[in-house]
């Protein structure tokens, strides 16, 4: 289906934009803002507000109509291609598949110390009313906490014979989350024989779900993830994977 932004009538295409330009406030500045807005597709573009910040900078609020069409059929979303299981179901699956506990090693790598997110997934306390993975009888959770160096993570994963490694990245300034994630996946790639490494799962509020392949991991989770989504994914993947190897 083809749709357009909706201001107050179907198809009006109205959007709001704000940004700062390194120009002094004034007519020329407004013109520069209009130029940028036009390049973004706003036509006409109304510079509704411009305010000087310090000397060299001006902040702008622009309203306008974009002609871009959104084709909802072209939207690629990482939809769950597997059922969402209850803890009980997850436990049974694990027993069936592994005949032993599923070992999950979790950490917040690099210099990132934001553990609330990963704890929401791992700790019993859980998130959004769901209990975390520690609550699952058949899952053994090793939560390494924050600011874990990639090498230490690999070593611990090995030592714990981890089936899955869960990594959180919240700080994204200067793409820290991408750099750290790639460093992590590379390290596992080199440390393990092909196809034999644990499942690599990263999560954080500012990741792009579609970037798993690009980051060299098996799955990327974003804001609002709940523990059961993660657990269901893990058993699903382990099921559809040759287990002889990792055993």
């Amino acid at each position, binding site marked *: 289906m083809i749709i357009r932004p*909706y201001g107050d009538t179907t198809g009006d295409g109205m959007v709001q934009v704000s940004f700062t330009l390194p120009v002094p406030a004034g007519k020329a500045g407004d013109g520069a803002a209009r130029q940028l807005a036009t390049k973004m597709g706003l036509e006409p573009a109304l510079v509704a*507000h*411009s305010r000087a910040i310090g000397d060299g900078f001006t902040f702008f609020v622009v309203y306008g109509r974009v002609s871009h069409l959104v084709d909802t059929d072209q939207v690629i979303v990482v939809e769950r291609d597997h059922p969402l299981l209850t803890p009980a179901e997850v436990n049974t699956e694990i027993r069936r598949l592994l005949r032993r506990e599923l070992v999950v090693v979790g950490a917040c790598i690099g210099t990132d110390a934001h553990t609330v997110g990963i704890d929401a997934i791992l700790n019993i306390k859980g998130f959004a009313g769901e209990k975390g993975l520690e609550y699952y009888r058949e899952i053994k959770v090793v939560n390494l906490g924050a600011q874990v160096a990639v090498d230490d993570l690999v070593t611990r994963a090995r030592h714990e014979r981890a089936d899955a490694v869960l990594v959180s990245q919240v700080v994204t300034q200067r793409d820290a989350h991408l750099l750290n994630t790639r460093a992590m996946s590379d390290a596992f790639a080199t440390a393990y024989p092909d196809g034999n490494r644990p499942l690599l799962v990263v999560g954080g509020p500012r990741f792009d779900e579609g970037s798993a392949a690009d980051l060299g991991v098996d799955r990327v989770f974003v804001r609002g993830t709940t523990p059961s989504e993660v657990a269901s994914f893990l058993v699903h993947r382990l099921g559809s994977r040759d287990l002889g190897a990792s055993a």
Partner: protein
Amino acid sequence: MLELDPTTIATARQLAAQVGRPIVDLARAHTTTSVERATLRLAGLAGADPDGTPWANRLLDAVRADLGIEHGVALPVWDALRREDADLLTLAQKAAAGSVRFELPSERHRDAVRAAASIAVRRGLTRIDRRRQERERLVTEIGDAPRKPWIYLIVATGNIHEDVEQARAAARAGADVIAIIRSTGQSLLDYVPEGLTTEGFAGTYATQANFRLVREALDETSRELGRYVRLTNYASGLCMPEIAALAGMERLDMMLNDSMYGILFRDINPLRTFVDQRFSRQVHARAGIIINTGEDNYLTTADAVDAAHTVTVSQLLNEYFAKEAGLEDWQLGLGHAFEIDPDLDESFRLELAHALLARTLFPDAPLKWMPPTRHMTGDVFRGHLLDGFFNLAGALTGQGILLVGMMTEAVVTPWLSDRDLALQNVRYVLNAASNLHEDFRPAPDGFIATRARQVLAEAIDLLGQISHDSTGLLGAIGDGTFGLMRRPADGGRGLDGVAAKSEHYFNPATEELDR
């Protein structure tokens, strides 16, 4: 609430009465084309000719051509009905075709004609009575708004069908009152458009069909939500009396109806406006409709601090005119607004002072609290913050009807998302600070109380001047006292539609309503 000296308050009301009485006398002594058309509409005349001119206008114009309007339409029209023995619509059509001559009934028919007219018009009033009972029933049946202030949201798509959708969405999102903005300029039309309308600028037309469509849709939504969602529109303009009649017959719940708005902001003749507003308010009173007055508008053209007392004066006058027309305290949505320059020191406390003054002067009226508009800019972030403080002032000072402010006030007519953000804003403030007023205790002689007293004193001075000036209120309006708008008594639109009542004047509607 503030401590205000009761005698000072009494003086203020007395002066307002002194200033208002001569205007009421004028209003009683005159009639207007719209008053007479409203009478025809109450008697059941509806619809329009092929080019959209309402039959009420066609019939009235024919009568007027023959006799003028100074005797009222009732006598000539029902006399003609007797002669032609036709119904109103047929008569209007014949009259439009020029095949009817109108005259006053002869002595021997006069009583019969009066009686016939009265019966016909009473039907309209009875319909209004039924609609009022219906509202009361629905409110008890379905339930009323959960709290005060009532949350009042504007819808203005310019297409009645989009309006219906957005009105429902707004109600579901938490609005207690929905206002359908009408098209710019309708207030200057000397007729009420007919049918469902899908055009207009910054809103679509106020028509009987549109009223009915939206009210029905909201009845449905009200049931769905378990609370009766009120509907409002605008009366002020050249057709105040007719729109009031239609609103009553279609069970609108509130109407914007100000005694001076049309004069000041639409350059409608003062006399025309005062005659029309009195009749329209009598109809509102009967319909159990809550009126909203327009003092907030003054602060969009005059400074909210310098002109604060003109708002108070206008509120007192609106109260006087309203009560004289039969409205009760619970029906008086007197207007005021959060329009003080936000860069002014203590601006928020000044707003609190003004809001508390109104609250204290009119303890039983559901005050209408208008959001910042004039000092809103394209900085929508700042605007959203200002609206939050407006909401807080409303909660702290116990306002009755809270008009939801939109961050895009200075940019566009509200977007769907603006309304949603605005409602979240209101909900946060009312929820997070709902009972903060318990901790809000302005010192008896502190900044707030002192400012409130000062404004009241200035209001009393101004009323005093007006009442002592021979030209009275009309003179004051001519001098730009309100909203800096100068409107001479003999200027403005619609004066030609006003006539002094003759000794034969008869209008069954006013007879009934003046009781």
